[in-house]
């Protein structure tokens, strides 16, 4: 068996090229936005609905009802068998917040804060450091879940409609959020940074908060191997949910699982299903989930309890506090790949002074055209 590891940033390019050449892999581990909304919708994937009986569905739905719906098309086809999930969040440099007296605005017990407190914290940080403390990064699509969550949560805006058929960026609450962010000293719409760059700047201490964060970063910031929950200079990193008016935000979820490319070979499909069953629903699932460093999407796997597998890891256990804030998994909306370009381009244009309403209208129009 040949295994190839692809980066998220351009992995889809490679798979798209392989599909075009007719040599796509038999099995792939990815998220619903690509397995379901892209390759599944285009007819390249095998329907895995027969792998999920009522027990499986209950075990998954008991963790989060959104997982299975994200892996399933409107007509009931399952193109992703889910294995792990996480909630994307943001992070703050606690030492910097303390120095600026901004830690008073954080609920460190629950890892939440309100929009009002977020604004006050940025003001305090800017007063202390006199420079950009948080970047609305928009150099590309990398890490765009962070900027989406920031804008949507600030005043309760939405990204898509409830049935995931259209993008709703012109929601008045999104406009208000963008206006607020644009007017804040200390927050910069930075077209030279993408998500990965922002993490690096945060890790180096240049930025005092990062909007692109999750448990993998908390365990190993910037992938640098210099210690969990620490910047390069040893400052403490605290993960936070995104600020919202009530403090109870809607976090973006990440769901990863397996899909099978339909290459017309029934024997290979059967073998792939056996592999998926072994990884996602057997006594070995514990190892798979722990290797992924994320959270299980189900309560039990063939009788093995998965609910307490991170009890031995204080950081993972603490992070579970964010899981109840998992919001709608709207990444399965049609035109997902195309709209990502429109989103970061829109942020760039707004950051460079373009009229907010007309820019949103144009870019959202392009995204919705791709969604038809």
């Amino acid at each position, binding site marked *: 068996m040949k295994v190839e590891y692809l980066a998220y940033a351009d992995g889809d390019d490679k798979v798209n090229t392989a599909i075009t050449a007719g040599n796509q892999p038999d099995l792939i581990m990815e998220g619903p936005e690509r397995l379901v909304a892209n390759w599944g919708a285009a007819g390249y994937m095998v329907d895995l609905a027969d792998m999920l009986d009522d027990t499986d569905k209950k075990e998954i739905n008991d963790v989060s009802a959104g997982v299975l719906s994200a892996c399933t098309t409107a007509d009931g086809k399952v193109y992703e068998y889910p294995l792990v999930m996480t909630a994307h969040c943001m992070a703050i440099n606690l030492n910097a917040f303390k120095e600026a007296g901004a830690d008073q605005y954080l609920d460190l017990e629950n890892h939440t804060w309100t929009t009002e407190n977020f604004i006050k914290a940025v003001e305090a940080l800017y007063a202390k450091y006199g420079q950009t403390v948080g970047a609305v990064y928009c150099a590309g699509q990398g890490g765009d879940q962070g900027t989406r969550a920031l804008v949507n949560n600030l005043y309760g805006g939405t990204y898509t409609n409830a049935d995931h058929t259209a993008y709703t960026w012109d929601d008045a609450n999104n406009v208000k959020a963008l206006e607020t962010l644009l007017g804040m000293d200390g927050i910069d719409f930075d*077209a030279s940074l993408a998500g990965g760059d922002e993490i690096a700047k945060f890790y180096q201490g240049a930025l005092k908060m990062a909007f692109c964060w999750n448990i993998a970063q908390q365990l190993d910031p910037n992938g640098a191997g210099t210690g969990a929950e620490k910047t390069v200079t040893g400052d403490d990193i605290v993960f936070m949910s995104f600020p919202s008016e009530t403090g109870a935000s809607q976090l973006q979820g990440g769901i990863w699982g397996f899909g099978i490319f339909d290459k017309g070979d029934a024997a290979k499909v059967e073998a792939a299903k056996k592999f998926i069953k072994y990884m996602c629903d057997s006594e070995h699932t514990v190892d798979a989930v722990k290797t992924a460093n994320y959270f299980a999407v189900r309560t039990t796997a063939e009788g093995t309890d998965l609910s307490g597998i991170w009890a031995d890891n204080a950081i993972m256990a603490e992070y579970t506090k964010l899981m109840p804030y998992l919001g709608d998994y709207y990444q399965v909306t049609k035109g997902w790949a195309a709209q990502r370009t429109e989103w970061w381009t829109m942020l760039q244009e707004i950051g460079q002074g373009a009229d907010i309403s007309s820019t949103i209208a144009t870019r959202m129009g392009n995204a919705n055209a791709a969604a038809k």
Partner: protein
Amino acid sequence: MAKQPKQSMSRALQRRENINGYLFMLPSLIFFVGFVIIPMFMCIFMSLTDANMRDQALPHFIGIKNFVDLWKDEDFLGALKNTFLIVVVSVPTVCAFSLWVASAIYKLKSPVLSAFRCIFYLPVVTGSVAVTVVWKWMYDNYNGILNTALKGAGLIEKNINFLGTPGIAIWCIIIILFTTSVGQPIVLYVSALGNVDQSLVEAAEVDGANHMQVFWKIKWPQIMPTTLYILVITTINSFQCFALIQLLTSGGSDTDTVMFRIYWTAFKLTEQQGHFGYANAMGVVLAIFIAILSAVQFRLAREK
């Protein structure tokens, strides 16, 4: 009658030599046909269709619709404008700078000349990713060396977001392109200037010609083939600017180029109807512009 066998032998010999010649060419010819000629025709054919990753059926012939759509596509027109800006700025500056440097160093002693050749050629042989990453650090908005130096010198108060500001980012990319493009022309010009017929130079000097007259009347015509080669190669390289855009800006901050747009349309906008056909149409348009500009350069050089 006596001449007939001789002619027949000569023809046989000629045929054998021809066959040998073609056999020697065959390996290159296979690659040239397989990787240049066939893809070129495929590209032209695909540009006339709605070829798409999502449709597994054969693409439909749609005539010149893709080309008509291109001229209404603001993103493509913006990319075309940037591409021309890069070509118009970088081709003359690369040629002029490399000629100036080569003129200054070609008479130096061998070890010094070799050292200069190495210095100027270094960015060419260094991987484009490595070069780009180093420039990215230099341009950094937060702790880049350029911002630090400018601030330290008191020239700026606030950091400049070099790669995140439209109107600045494209010039930053042109500067990098310049540094990676001048190496080869300098080496070629040094060689060309070293091969200029010295007897003509000396004769002109004896006749009282000054340095400028010697250069433009004697040397310049003799290095014209080299200049033409440099012009064509630099033009093609500038038209095909891709890696710098991909690694630095992803086409943002008004730095999109046609080459980057082709990649983006073909492999990122896979939900767009007929995206392969559309990307191929961009490729055809780019090839036409390169061909026209190269032909103009050949014509001008021939007239000279």
